[in-house]
């Protein structure tokens, strides 16, 4: 059977440096051209195509990349990832409406807040494993949402309205319906996240996560400080979720606790698993498809979510490892052993 991942990986491995730069640049160019394809078959029937690309597609991609650090890289099942997204969004909402700070100044604050929340949650929760960790994170996600719902100081059930757009940079104005500009901004954030994850995945850190994912006890007994690396995975994953939250709030200009339900956590988790846990290209693809598909098939009206569900069930049966599964790095054996 045709294997997309191996096909892509072999092209990449056969290319020299110049070729790789070329491939990367053209991939970025294709992604950047997406907003111009609104007139083609890609167009979404009801929602505005440009805005679908920003939310959910781009935001989902950022969040899926972040969740992939936690689940795909180090194997920690986090069912409350939406909490970090909410913390980022509320940081943007509060500081954006109450202070004169702009989006780019709030972005690092939002990331720091999410990382801090990741640390607070991680220190007690990461002493547990598997199912128990999943339940704790699930609870945490709900606690954050319900706190937002009941805390009138941050808008309660009404949420926060009138969140400012990012300030004009290089003469480019972030108006509410300038979806292309938002998309390109988010694309840059996605690229930065990819860069960060790729750098972290090599060498010691990546191996530590990989060993923890495969056999945590063996890792600990081979001298890997597992707790420290699990906390790092959690905190770094949270930072990406926080960044997504800040950007989201600065795009929709209105947030309320309803935006941060358990369903978001589950949907992002679905993106990661659907696309291919542990493979950054896979999870991006998963996020793009799962973010885009519901709007593309909106003409089915009520049957839309049913079809969406069927697609998920079919995919998981046919390709349980996702569209682009985790990379297997085995090289061919040298000829002398091949008989």
């Amino acid at each position, binding site marked *: 059977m045709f294997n997309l991942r191996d096909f892509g990986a072999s092209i990449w491995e056969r290319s020299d440096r110049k070729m790789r730069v070329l491939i990367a640049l053209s991939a970025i160019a294709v992604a950047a051209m997406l907003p111009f394809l609104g007139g083609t078959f890609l167009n979404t029937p009801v929602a505005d195509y440009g805005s679908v690309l920003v939310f959910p597609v781009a935001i989902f991609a950022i969040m899926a990349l972040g969740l992939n650090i936690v689940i795909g890289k180090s194997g920690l099942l986090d069912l409350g990832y939406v909490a970090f997204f909410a913390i980022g969004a509320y940081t943007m909402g509060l500081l954006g409406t109450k202070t004169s700070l702009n989006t780019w100044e709030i972005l690092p604050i939002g990331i720091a807040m999410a990382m801090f929340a990741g640390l607070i949650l991680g220190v007690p929760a990461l002493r547990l494993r598997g199912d128990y960790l999943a339940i704790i994170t699930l609870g945490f996600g709900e606690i954050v949402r319900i706190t937002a719902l009941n805390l009138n100081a941050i808008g309660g059930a009404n949420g926060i309205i009138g969140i400012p757009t990012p300030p004009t940079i290089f003469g480019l104005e972030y108006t509410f319906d300038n979806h292309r500009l938002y998309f390109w901004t988010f694309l840059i954030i996605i690229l930065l996240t990819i860069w960060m994850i790729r750098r972290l995945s090599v*060498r010691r850190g990546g191996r530590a996560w990989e060993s923890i994912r495969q056999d945590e*006890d063996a890792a600990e007994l081979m*001298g890997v400080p597992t707790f420290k690396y699990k906390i790092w995975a959690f905190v770094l994953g949270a930072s990406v979720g926080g960044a997504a939250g800040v950007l989201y709030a600065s795009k929709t200009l209105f947030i309320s606790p309803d935006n941060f339900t358990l369903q978001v956590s589950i949907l992002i988790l679905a993106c990661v698993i659907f696309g291919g846990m542990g493979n950054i290209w896979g999870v991006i693809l998963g996020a793009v498809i799962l973010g885009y598909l519901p709007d593309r098939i909106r003409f089915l009206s009520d049957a839309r979510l049913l079809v969406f569900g069927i697609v998920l069930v079919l995919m998981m049966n046919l390709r349980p490892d996702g569209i682009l599964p985790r990379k297997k*790095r085995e090289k061919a054996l040298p000829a002398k052993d091949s008989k």
Partner: protein
Amino acid sequence: MSESVLRLENVTMQFGGLVALNDVSFEIKKQEILGLIGPNGAGKTTVFNVITGVYQVTKGDIKFLGKSLKGQKRYKITYGGIARTFQNIRLWGEMTALENVITATDTHKKSGLLSGLFGLPISRKEEKRDKARAQEILDFIGIGEYADRLAKNLPYGVQRRLEIARALGTNPKLLLLDEPAAGFNPAEKVELAKTIRKIRDAGYTVLLIEHDMSLVMGVSDRVVVIDFGQKIADDLPAKVQNDKRVVEAYLGVPDDAS
């Protein structure tokens, strides 16, 4: 034969009402191969687990190079110089053989996540050094040609050897081998015995759990026998073989003697 590397002092390990180890004391000297034997369920693997910090001893103490291991975190014990293999192979299957060993060498790296993220020179330098070291260890154990293959796809015997290589990667002073010959054919056992001696001659101290008597008796400098959690013998291999209590533990007591 002088310096004591590891000393168990009256170690008792209880799980609720079950006494897995009862007042066990023995020591391992530098560059010694100490065989630890006993019938199934005697408590051999429990000895490994209390040494590596998987369990905390109920009573008694374990001293490694004169310092107590009580309450130490497991990865710190490995950092301090004790490494082990597992009775049931526990390699990281989806990493290559080389990566399995490098991950163990990471124990002694100064660079971590952030220096990797920013590509600091120290991270690059250590990476290069440890890659070379990991390959050396694989060659030393005799499985260098498998370096680039995923651990889970390796033949069984190679996996067992890779477990030893990975433990050596942490640069231990004391190496604990938990049934390294399980499932080996006689020829492989002979090879393994050679490897274990080679490891000792390279300056390591080895504590060996093994069921195969010919291997243990052939390779060990000294043998400790435990039965039902108690030490019943601690002597040269030849003497242990003729020890009455050891024979009874393995073969049972004749009816008319009891």
